[in-house]
């Protein structure tokens, strides 16, 4: 294994230096450009009403208990009521996916040695658990895609590839941290997978990390969150 690409210093220096910059620039600029493109498809519109007038259904007359039951009845027909378990798993998966790389000790040590700055770090055991959540969530999504007919029917090769790209940095990082298999190979794969994922985010289905917030918080619709003012203008 000594003469492979994994021990080639030119290659290692490239992926640890310029490649990191390149992937972060593509990630940052890509996000900005794609977000602007998405926002250009929206316009500020006069607010549309989706609920009956407060004068017709006086909300203030409801007791606390009635309000609670109403809200509960509303939640029951949402995706939370229909698929509570999957929503929970998906929420944990996404939160861990975003926060783990930012607060993992190793990344902050690298930041510190390069720029003398660093963020707060999780204790290593916590990062380890969060990583396991991501890998377990990814495995569950993979199983759903394979074995649940309704998901399999709409799944494409692209979905499997992107799921793998999303979980791969965590899997390789986990294996490297625990020194399972060859550490040097794993850490190189970890860097490469991370860079690939960063570069793919603005230009693939990963862009839902921005689309979700624009579509749910900025666009007026029956299920919109917050108080949005825009609507689609395709």
């Amino acid at each position, binding site marked *: 294994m000594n003469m492979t690409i994994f021990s080639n210093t030119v290659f290692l220096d490239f992926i640890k230096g310029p490649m990191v910059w390149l992937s972060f620039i593509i990630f940052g600029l890509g996000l900005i450009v794609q977000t602007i493109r998405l926002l250009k*498809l929206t316009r500020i519109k006069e607010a549309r009403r989706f609920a009956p007038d407060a004068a017709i259904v006086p909300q203030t007359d409801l007791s606390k208990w009635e309000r609670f039951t109403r809200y509960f009845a509303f939640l029951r027909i949402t995706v939370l009521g229909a698929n509570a378990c999957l929503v929970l798993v*998906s929420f944990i998966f996404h939160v861990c996916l975003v926060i783990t790389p930012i607060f993992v000790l190793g990344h902050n040590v690298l930041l510190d040695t390069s720029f003398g700055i660093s963020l707060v770090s999780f204790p290593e055991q916590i990062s380890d658990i969060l990583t396991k959540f991501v890998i377990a969530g990814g495995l569950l999504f993979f199983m759903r895609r394979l074995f649940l007919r309704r998901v399999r*029917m709409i799944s494409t090769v692209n979905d499997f590839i992107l799921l793998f790209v999303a979980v791969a940095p965590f899997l390789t990082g986990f294996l490297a941290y625990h020194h399972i298999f060859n550490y040097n190979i794993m850490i190189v794969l970890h860097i490469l997978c991370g860079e690939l994922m960063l570069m793919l985010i603005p230009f693939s289905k990963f862009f839902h990390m921005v689309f979700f917030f624009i579509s749910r918080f900025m666009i007026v*619709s029956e299920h919109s969150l917050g108080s949005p003012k825009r609507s689609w203008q395709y």
Partner: protein
Amino acid sequence: MGTTTEINTDTIQSILKQNRKQIKLGLAMCAHCSLCAESCFLFVSNDNDPEYMPSYKFINSIGKLYRKKGKVSKQALEEMRDLVFEKCVLCTRCYCPFGIDIPSLITLGRNVCRSQGLFREYDR
């Protein structure tokens, strides 16, 4: 019956072109998560048949037309007719976690079918 035997690809393409951005965004952002399934009352009342899933309906009607650039056979279009007219009543109750407007995409599928003389056959 008033139905044409030939498919007019130009008409289909002009509908696709007019609504290109909406279709492209909907297809690009659908994460194929299947969370919209239970929000469709037809899905639930048809023994959870995946063909009634809102995302399946728009991906396999307007989505398919978009990917094939409107070049589809009569038979394929008839299958789409069944999806958008028989398997959807456009009640607009479907819920997408990402906020994709599935009913309007299915409506576009209906537009294409109607432009080719394919619509709901009430006497079937």
